[in-house]
């Protein structure tokens, strides 16, 4: 099912262009800020949790997920070069699966690794905060990649819709309407972090762990399968 050629093409499309600049700038920003906060404030669990939760997991991971997830397939569909890929005797679900694996790998590398390093910089992994947030970032990366890859096959406005979900649904509506939090990748990932981190770490999630795990698996598997189906019946729209 995994196709190395598709993987190489996707990987180069994601990291070859200026996209890589944004992908590098975001983690670099997190690391610089963590170093600055540590230097000014000293090690503090509450501060570490605040920065990693409010900035890293709420902003950085969804943004990297949108860029990598939609970037894995969106531009190809947009400029029509996807027909050259689809006309090859490669099963379309396997195209999607490969692109999903590459996108989630890239997202995880550019979000979870910086989160882990930032956690160690901020408070030396006291109470397992760094590991907990890094794990949450990995899980969220996988779910976001599946979700945004699906969006990329469904709509030409995948980036806008993805951003609207990440910024408006999760941040704005999630903070006003409690129920919206149940349908938020961020909260599912936080449920995992809550379990891993020490009891004094002050990480709380709006959903229980079993619900979170089930929903994460459903979104990831369902998103990938549906994207594969969608690619099988893809029609190329003309330029508007």
């Amino acid at each position, binding site marked *: 099912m995994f196709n190395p050629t598709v993987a190489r093409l996707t990987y180069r499309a994601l990291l070859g262009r200026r996209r890589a600049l944004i992908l590098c700038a975001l983690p670099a920003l997190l690391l610089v800020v963590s170093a600055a906060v540590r230097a000014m404030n000293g090690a503090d669990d509450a501060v570490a949790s605040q920065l990693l939760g409010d900035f890293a997991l709420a902003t950085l991971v969804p*943004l990297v997920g949108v860029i990598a997830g939609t970037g894995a397939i969106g531009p190809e569909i947009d400029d029509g070069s996807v027909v050259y890929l689809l006309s090859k005797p490669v099963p379309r679900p396997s195209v999607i699966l490969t692109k999903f694996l590459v996108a989630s790998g890239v997202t995880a590398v550019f979000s979870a690794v910086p989160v882990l390093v930032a956690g160690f910089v901020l408070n030396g992994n006291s109470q397992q905060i760094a590991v907990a947030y890094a794990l949450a970032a990995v899980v969220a990366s996988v779910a976001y990649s599946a979700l945004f890859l699906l969006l990329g096959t469904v709509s030409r406005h995948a980036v806008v819709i993805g951003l609207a979900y990440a910024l408006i649904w999760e941040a*704005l509506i999630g903070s006003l309407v409690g129920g919206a939090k149940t349908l938020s990748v961020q909260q599912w990932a936080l449920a995992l972090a809550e379990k891993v981190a020490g009891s004094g770490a002050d990480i709380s999630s709006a959903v229980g762990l079993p619900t979170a795990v089930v929903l994460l698996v459903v979104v990831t598997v369902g998103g990938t399968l549906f994207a594969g189906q969608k690619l099988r019946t893809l029609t190329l729209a003309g330029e508007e």
Partner: protein
Amino acid sequence: MSPDRTPAHATPAHAPAPPGSAGSAPAGGGSRPGRGQDVIHNIGYRGYEGPRLGRSYARRALFSQTLRGAYGLGRSAKSKVLPMLLFAAVSVPAAIVVAVSVVAKSDDLPVGYSEYVLMMQPLIGIYLAAAAPQAFSLDLRFKTTPLYFSRPMERGDYVVAKFAALSAALFVFTAAPVLIMYAGALLAKLGFAEQSGAAAQGLVFCALFALLHAAIAAWIAALTPRRGFGIAAIIVAVTVPFFLITALQGIAWTSDSKEAVGWLGVASPGTLLDGIQSTFLGGSSQFPGGQDLTGAQGAVYLVVLAALLVCFYALLQRRYRKAGL
């Protein structure tokens, strides 16, 4: 073959006549005798003798075209959906705010005018990220910029028209909910003078907000021909600093360095404008603890705002010294 040939010449016998014979015959009709063979190239093109509308007309046309395009007017039905949805999403809560204050018979609106705009920042950011690449990147992608510059229009005209149109689109987007709230406040018979003053300040804030954000987004969008990339880059540039600075301000607030909260706010467009509206435009601050700026901080905020505007506009002008990429 001659420009003013008569029906008699169009008979089959004369039609395949070679150019040489056409030149020797009186086929020129007396218009240009003795010009010889080049007559055959004159196939009746005429010069344009109507009015030339000139640079300012081209500027205005480009402005209105871009402004309409930012809301999908004059484009396909599909591309109207997103701007209109976002416009509704930013306006409807304003109507709800007004309705609540009318029903509750309160003597003031629950949310201030400029506070409302600041609360809607994620939505406005997404609208901006969708509108700016549509205005700038597509001209680069479809290589229409050389066509613009082959008209009497100059580089400065193009930049002014596009930037003004994007600012105007964003101003309409932010001012509409402010006007809805103002109309509602008058209907609810809240104090007329007080509400008018606050709404005017709110509109000034909307203008500043639109100018700064349009300048940043226009420059980023002008750097890339790819729409998807432009959208992502703009949203990153607008929202990431805001969330980052807000998180840092929270940390500074909890660790008791209250002075730092104000200084940190300079570093992102959203918090910069927040500080300006709370200090100069009578709004209330969204900073942690609702902290206000000191006098020196307020001055620095204004200087930074002016510097950012000039800087991004100059960068945009510089970008178009070359028409392509």
